[in-house]
Every structure is written in structure tokens, then in C-alpha cells.
């Protein structure tokens, strides 16, 4: 009996999180188009429904009705696998993200996370590395020069920026003494890590910008150079999966940054879940704002910045944090 209730709870949480995230991703697309439009003195989409709120639905219907084209001479299996990989890896990470403190109902404590992994940080880093495969396969299997170039760039960029991202997380693990995301959030009850670890926060933020493949770092899909990069050959719902995957990734990395650096659900006055969502949405706005402002890096600048600036800085930060902790704890 007890077992069934536990499974049912997990199922309910899964469904809730999935619907929440998919809706959020759909409306992030709309929000991005609207905000970018306003930044360029346009209105953005405002035709479908009041203020264009039904635009995601219209886009979905359009994508479903499009022809699902698989280019000849492409590697079929990998071509079909790639978009699924890029969505699934991102969705899986949400399982480890705590949204709110445990809820107590009828004497039972319900954690507000699908599964509180004790290696949550590693789970996140591992899956975000796996998501590189989606992009690489997509670029390679399409049998197109643009997709190929986009895939190569994406692979190089994601691998290069994963290193400083991982290194920026190690100091947090040192300070909080745990790989569990819940413990990391609880370690920020007083001060978020963004204040105590500003350098790590900066490095991590730049790295997740590269991970989302958005402007300053949108080389993999640079429209004016590579048509659409690794998803040039995709159409219909498969393209939609890449597209939605990118926005789910945006929501995900917003949540991850909130968990790691902005204190998760901690905040005065308002209920925890509101704080969490508010922080995530603020970060999403900042992502969009950056996209509306900054131009794209050149490939060599991107590589040099990653390897010669971010990684040494992250290592230095790790060294200092370790030294200070050793000195403090004797």
C-alpha cells in the first residue's frame, strides 16, 4: 500500500513537472519573440488570440502539418535519434531539481523533487554532456555541409565550455559538502552562492549561455553563416523537438542556476515555489535580453575565451576556495 502511494506520488510529480515545463518552453518562445520584438521597436506576434497568447498553439499545429522529410543518403537511425536525444537528456535533468522544500501532508513528508539523487551535480553534468550527442548526431547524420559544420562547431563549443562549467561547480560542492542539489540549496539559506562565490557564478553563467547555444555563443546555428546549423535538414516535428529542446534547455539552465547560485527556493515573505519560479523567469528574461543585445563571437575568440580565460579562472577559484576552506576548518 505504502509502495503504491509512493509510486503514485512520483507519477503525479512527473506529470506536473512535464506539463509545467512544456508549457513554459512554449511560452518562452512567445516571450522571446515578444521581448525581442519590443527591443527592436516591433510588436512581436499579436495576431493569434489576445496579445498573441495562442501563438504557441498555432506554431505547434503548423509544425505537425509540415512534411516530415528525411534527406536521402542520410544516416537514418542517427537522424531520427538526434532530436529525441536533445530533448530527453534535457528533460531528465529536471528529475533531480528540487523546486521547493519538502511538503508535509498527513504526517508524510513529500519531497518536492522527483528523485533527490545524492549525486545530483554529477547527474546534471553527465546528462548535459550527453546532450552534445544529440547535436553531433543531428549535424553528422544529415549529410549536409551546413549541418556538418554546425555539428562540428556545436561539439567543439559544448565540450570546451563543459569543462569550466564543471570546474565552477566544484567549489560549491566543497562548501556545501554534498553532491545533492537539495543540500546545495540548503547550504544557501543565509547567503546565495552568487554572493559568496561571484567568480564561480560568472564563469557558470557564461558557460550555460554557451550550453544553450544562444547569442554570443550561437555559432552552431549561426543563421547568416550556416542556414540553421545542425538542424538545417530537419523539418516538421523533428525540427520542433530541437527547437523546443533549446527552450526547455533555457528553462532548465535557469532552474539549475537558481539551484546552484541563487539560493533555490529561499527568499523572504513569498512562498518558496514563487521564489523559485520568479528566479527562473528572471534568468530567462536575462537570457533573452542578452540575445537581443550581444553579437556573435568569432570561432577563434570563442575557443580562446573558453580555454585561456575561463578554465584558468575556474581552476584559480577552485584553488582559492579549497585553501580558504582548509584554513577555516583547520
Amino acid at each position, binding site marked *: 500500500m505504502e509502495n503504491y502511494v509512493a509510486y503514485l506520488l512520483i507519477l503525479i510529480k512527473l506529470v506536473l513537472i512535464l506539463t509545467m515545463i512544456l508549457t513554459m518552453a512554449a511560452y518562452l518562445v512567445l516571450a522571446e519573440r515578444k521581448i525581442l*520584438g*519590443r*527591443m*527592436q*521597436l*516591433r*510588436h512581436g506576434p*499579436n495576431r493569434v488570440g489576445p496579445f498573441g497568447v495562442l501563438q504557441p498553439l498555432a506554431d505547434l499545429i503548423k509544425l505537425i502539418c509540415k512534411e516530415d522529410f528525411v534527406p536521402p543518403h542520410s544516416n537514418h537511425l542517427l537522424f531520427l535519434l538526434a532530436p529525441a536525444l536533445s530533448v530527453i537528456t534535457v528533460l531528465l535533468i529536471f528529475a533531480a531539481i528540487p523546486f521547493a522544500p519538502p511538503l508535509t501532508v498527513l504526517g508524510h513528508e513529500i519531497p518536492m523533487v522527483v528523485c533527490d539523487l545524492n549525486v545530483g551535480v554529477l547527474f546534471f553534468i553527465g546528462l548535459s554532456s550527453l546532450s552534445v550527442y544529440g547535436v553531433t548526431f543531428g549535424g553528422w547524420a544529415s549529410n549536409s555541409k551546413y549541418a556538418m559544420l554546425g555539428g562540428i562547431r556545436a561539439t567543439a563549443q559544448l565540450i570546451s565550455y563543459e569543462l569550466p562549467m564543471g570546474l565552477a561547480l566544484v567549489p560549491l560542492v566543497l562548501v556545501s559538502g554534498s553532491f545533492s542539489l537539495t543540500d546545495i540549496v540548503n547550504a544557501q539559506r543565509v547567503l546565495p552562492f552568487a554572493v559568496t562565490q561571484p567568480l564561480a557564478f560568472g564563469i557558470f553563467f557564461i558557460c550555460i549561455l554557451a550550453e544553450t547555444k544562444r547569442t554570443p555563443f550561437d555559432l552552431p546555428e549561426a543563421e547568416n553563416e550556416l542556414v540553421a546549423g545542425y538542424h538545417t535538414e530537419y523539418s516538421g516535428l523533428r525540427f520542433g523537438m530541437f527547437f523546443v529542446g533549446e527552450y526547455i534547455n533555457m528553462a532548465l539552465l535557469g532552474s539549475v542556476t537558481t539551484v546552484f547560485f541563487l539560493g533555490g527556493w529561499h527568499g523572504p515573505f513569498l512562498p518558496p515555489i514563487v521564489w523559485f519560479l520568479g528566479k527562473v523567469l528572471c534568468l530567462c528574461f536575462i537570457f533573452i*535580453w542578452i540575445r537581443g*543585445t550581444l553579437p556573435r563571437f568569432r570561432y577563434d575568440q570563442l575557443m580562446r575565451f573558453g580555454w585561456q580565460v575561463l578554465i584558468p579562472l575556474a581552476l584559480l577559484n577552485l584553488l582559492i576556495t579549497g585553501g580558504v576552506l582548509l584554513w577555516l576548518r583547520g
Partner: protein
Amino acid sequence: MNLWRGIKGTILPFWVTLSNMLRKPVTVQYPEERRVLPERTRAQIVLTRSPDGEERCVACYLCSAACPVDCISMQAAEDQNGRRYAAWFRINFGRCIYCGLCAEACPTLAIQMTPHYEFCERQPLALVYEKEDLLIEDGGKDGDYNFYHHAGIGVVNPRGSNPDETAPEDVRSNLP
């Protein structure tokens, strides 16, 4: 100094985009809002008539020759008293680019541009306008102008009897 410039160049654009976000969009949302058009807007082409109600067009083919996209075609004809007219006259508005070269080329002010631009169709063939679709009951921009009163040859009046026309010269009598 270079670093300072770099930092400034990275931070300032964020302020620019944010302040632009709070400004009013400049978009004119067409079907609901309409721009006031300039007076001499060029759009739909018409064929005008002279004050006496006759067609001005003399089917000289100059408009058709001037048209850069070849959207004007016609067939010239002549009636009993020698007046030229177009047996049929066709403008394909699906191709017309509204450049106004035809109106400039027209020696009789027959073909003229109007500011009416909302005549889109779902069927491309519906955009092919025939002479009866193009002709209007008006003189257009220069309503009093009547080509044949200046240069008509035996059409409106006998030769040489138009108000600003001199009688034909007898070329055999004015030799030196």
C-alpha cells in the same frame, strides 16, 4: 584603457536594448491602422478619357515598351475617321511593379497612376485587368487636356483647324 572600453562596450548595449523595450513600437499595424499616403503615391493604373468622353489612348505601344516587367500588352486598331484606339488593352497587375514609367511615357496622358493600392486577389488571373476594367469616366490628373485638339489629324476637326494649329504647309510652294 582597452579593457575599460571593452567593459563599457559590453554593458552599455544592455541599457540601450532595455530602454528601447520601454518605448512604443513604431510598427503601423496595417489592416487596423493606416498610414497617411503621400499625395503622389503610385498604385493601380487607370486609362483616362478626354473631356469629350473619348478614350485618350491611341495605342502607340510606348507604355508597353517602357514597362520594365512587360506587364502591359495591347492591340492597336483604327476607326473609320482615322482615329487610333486599342482593340484590347491588358495590364497584368500580378507583375506590375508600380514604377510609373508607363505613365511617364504616355504622350496622351491616357495611362495614369492612382493611389488606390488595395486590390489583392486570391486568384492570380483575377489580377489581369482588361480595357473595360481599366477605363474610367474621368480625365484624371489633367482633366481638360485633349490630345486631338493639339495634334489630331483630321479626327476632331479638319486638318489645320484646331485652335493652336496652323494650316498645313504646301511643301511645293515654299521652296527657296
